[in-house]
């Protein structure tokens, strides 16, 4: 099972060393429809857990993305400004949004694992 963790807001989080990458799940991109624009945070910004971090726009509407864990933004995915459709075609890979240097590794462990997230998504249908 992948080491990816998930929030109830359908963000995924992948811990690598002291940094997590953040994106949205396949379920989320499918529900959103075609992504046409992503507004990413600035590098160097520090978020508390739950702060509004980014915005993803589909053809019809804007949706907010919240910081799943606290930390400092160390990298953002510049490829999304030229090709926002990566969020749809490759949500777990090239469709990543930003990377956070985290203060607390336990914050990631508290999130849902792959199985728990699958059950959670099923419970929503």
């Amino acid at each position, binding site marked *: 099972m992948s080491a990816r963790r998930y929030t*109830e*807001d*359908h*963000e995924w989080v992948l811990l690598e060393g002291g940094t997590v990458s953040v994106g*949205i799940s396949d*379920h*989320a991109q499918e*529900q*959103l*429809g*075609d992504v*046409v*624009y992503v*507004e990413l945070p600035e590098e160097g910004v520090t978020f508390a857990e*739950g702060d509004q971090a980014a*915005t*993803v*726009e*589909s*053809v*019809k*509407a*804007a*949706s*907010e*993305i*919240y910081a799943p864990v606290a930390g400092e933004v160390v990298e953002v995915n510049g490829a999304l*400004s030229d090709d926002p459709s990566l969020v749809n075609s490759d949500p777990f890979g090239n469709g990543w949004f930003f990377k956070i240097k985290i203060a607390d590794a336990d914050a990631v462990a508290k999130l849902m694992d792959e199985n728990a997230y699958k059950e959670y998504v099923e419970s*929503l*249908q």
Partner: protein
Amino acid sequence: MAAAGGRAALSLSWEFGAVSQSGSQSGELKQTPLHALHQELGARMVPFAGYQMPVQYRDGIIKEHRHTRNAAGLFDVSHMGQVRLSGGGRGGGGAAAALERLVPVDVIGLAEGRQRYALFTNDHGGILDDLMVTNAGDHLFLVVNGACKAQDLAHLRQHLSADCTIEPLPEQALLALQGPQAAAVLARLTPGLAELVFMTAARVEIAGADCFVSRSGYTGEDGFEISVPAARAEALARRLLAEPEVAPIGLGARDSLRLEAGLCLYGHDMDAETTPVEASLTWALSKARRRDGARPGGYLGAEAVMDQLAHGVARRRVGIRPEGRAPLREGVELIDEDGRALGRITSGGFGPTTGAPVAMGYIETAWAQPGTKLGASLRGKVHPVEVAKLPFVPQRYYRG
């Protein structure tokens, strides 16, 4: 992530809300005659105008939009209101005179087989709805917005029931086939249809169904709207979908198509507080009904409208082209370089054909010239925009 406006589990943050794919969440919503077909095609259904409607199918909005501009898109627009006006004099002529009391449009002079865009106005000249009127020979055929059809019927009855017969047509479905291949598709089934020109109509048989067809639509492309008995609608839709050029298209793409085409959406780009002059729809105000025309005024709000035609208006509907890539949507404020509010966006989103954000809104008249630079205020940032001529994509109507 959460829909704008609150922290919640992800929901489809469509303007209209969402209905689960497997069934209805609201017993109150009506279904069109194509409901089973939509479900079979994997449509995502949403509530709209009191109906469960497909917002998209499996390919998604962008593909559906592009397909319509490249080939032929089939839309279920059965939620719209279809009404027949008749009587009150020879050949529906009385009905035409009656309807002229409610619209600033030449209906008496509308020849048989011809169609015209019209507006219901109130006594202040505000727009109650926009509609299509067709002279169908022995009656007038009206198509009104689904969200307004109950009010429009009440309006017609309140003013005209003494002068003509008003019949809603709930047993008729309405399909639209739009795009550069639409005519070739229909001509394969009913050869004569290729001869219809833009804004004309005819009663024809298509695949064994008795249809009333107009060459018009809401996409800026060549296309047709087909009124067909509800009992025949699914068979006709399946027959059309069997043609290689045709794909099913939902309301999401219908909206992006009309937005690129610069066409108004009632309730957003115009409402009862907006006059036709403010809405930049003076082209729809027939010469015959203007102050120096054959039948000047004589409709609700005529004095207000004619006054605006003579003296101008304080604000006008214009195209807005964001310079960046962020879509700017309904409600976004338009400002000058000092931050003073000049107007607001009334429709906006991403244009799949332009590959960029597009919008429409209202602006103080002094700022309404194409090329004027403005700001749009969104999430604490000022996005540069400029006033743009409409449409964003060339109209491709077939004029013969």
